[in-house]
């Protein structure tokens, strides 16, 4: 029997009455008060997620950047200490081993925050390609990570606005933290990285500032409303960045694993595209449901708490992927109508 891993905040989640579920080998809170109120807290005020299950891989050494430049899709020349970047770890077929954020800590030291489910494959991939002058280490057990997200998140934490995709060392109510201007909700916010032994105190201080504890359930509906892909659902080793609409993360002018395949796909155009859609009839699309017309498959689907309709993403033939195209989705044997919409599905201006 597999034992589930626990984050340093496990007992606090249980004490708050969270519903704990297995996720990528971890026992994680899926919800506290409920997915919908937590979702609304993040859209309207501020919520905090324990994302300490995510993996951290450090690459250090005089040739650390050279190694990463050859393995990651985005251009690390755009980074400098204090900056971060969304990027992809790609395979020879241009498929996505993981999507991640890389932080330049020092010119010779980089930190990659990877999906919990990809910690092993991502670490092995990079470690096996280590070159002399670069050292790759799995630092996942050395960090706890809290994502504080929402229009009032920074105000509640007493932080300045800040520039997206930057980081700085800071302190919150006496706890030393790395403040990363990143997130997965489409809202203003930050991700606070700290030592595991300080995580409990940091969590308590954040809650004391009126931030609402939120589980992985709300994290999923929030990211889907703004069309951030989820690895394992919308993207994976068999899907390429161009079809997934992530071409903007690929510096095709440089060499990295799979770059030539991606250049080819870009040149001739992808056969299928990852689109966003909303349901026109009462129904909730779910991952794996067939799109009957145009032929395709739902890769993520749920109920949108903000729009109060079923929403999703899925792959359809590229020549049928335009916004406004009608879809028919097979919802457990019933055909239900949907419509392709521009990404993101939810925009803040629409909120009341």
């Amino acid at each position, binding site marked *: 029997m597999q034992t589930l891993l626990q984050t340093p905040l496990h007992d606090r989640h249980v004490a708050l009455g969270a519903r704990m579920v297995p996720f990528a080998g971890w026992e994680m809170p899926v919800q506290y008060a409920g997915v919908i109120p937590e979702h609304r807290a993040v859209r309207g005020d501020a919520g905090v997620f324990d994302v300490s299950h995510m993996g951290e891989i450090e690459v250090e050494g005089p040739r650390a950047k050279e190694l990463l430049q050859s393995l990651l899709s985005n251009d690390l020349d755009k980074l400098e200490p204090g900056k971060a970047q969304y990027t992809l770890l790609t395979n020879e077929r241009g498929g996505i081993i993981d999507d991640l954020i890389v932080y330049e800590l020092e010119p010779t030291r980089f930190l990659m925050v990877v999906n919990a489910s990809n910690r092993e494959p991502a670490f092995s991939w990079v470690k096996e390609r280590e070159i002399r002058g670069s050292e790759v280490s799995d630092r996942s057990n050395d960090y706890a990570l809290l994502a504080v997200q929402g229009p009032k998140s920074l105000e509640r934490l007493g932080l300045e606005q800040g520039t997206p995709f930057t980081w700085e060392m800071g302190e919150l109510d006496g706890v030393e933290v790395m403040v990363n201007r990143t997130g997965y909700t489409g809202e203003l916010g930050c991700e606070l990285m700290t030592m595991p032994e300080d995580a409990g105190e940091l969590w308590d201080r954040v809650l004391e500032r009126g931030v609402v504890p939120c589980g992985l359930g709300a994290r999923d509906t929030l990211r889907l409303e703004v069309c951030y892909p989820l690895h394992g659902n919308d993207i994976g080793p068999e899907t390429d960045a161009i079809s997934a609409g992530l071409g903007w993360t690929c510096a095709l002018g440089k060499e990295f694993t799979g770059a030539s395949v991606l250049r080819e796909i870009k040149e001739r155009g992808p056969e299928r595209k990852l689109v966003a859609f909303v349901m026109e009839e009462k129904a909730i699309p779910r991952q794996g449901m067939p799109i009957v017309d145009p032929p395709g498959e739902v890769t993520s689907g749920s*109920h949108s708490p903000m729009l109060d309709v079923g929403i999703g993403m899925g792959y359809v033939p590229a020549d049928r992927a335009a916004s406004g195209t009608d879809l028919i989705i097979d919802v457990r044997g019933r055909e239900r109508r949907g419509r392709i919409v521009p990404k993101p599905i939810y925009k803040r201006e629409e909120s009341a």
Partner: protein
Amino acid sequence: MSAAEQSYPDDLKYHREHDWARIDGDEAVLGITWYAQDSLGELVHFEPPEQGQQVQRDASYGEVESVKAVSDVISPLSGEVLEVNRKVVDEPETVNGDPYGEGWLIRIRLSEASEADDLLDAGAYRAFLAEQ
């Protein structure tokens, strides 16, 4: 809508799939129990049967969905669908707020009234839940 307090009224009959029936002569009103709605979380969709459709005991007559999960709704009794609660179709969260009242799902005309003898009373259902 605020969630209801846990309860299992004594005037109802219960099915092990966490459904209830309020029997009145040859008709019954059906719904899901407090336990069922609490397990699912806030409901966001009810896929109802058609009026006039036959429902069979122990078989699914519809689906309820929360953000994260889908669940079949099992009929505790056999019969014909007389009415679907449109309020729940339009506002599924009604079930979370009042699972035995405004959150009823369908009303049926019973075809096998004796089936009711096989259902659990509130005490037996509570005992069943305690074993889960």
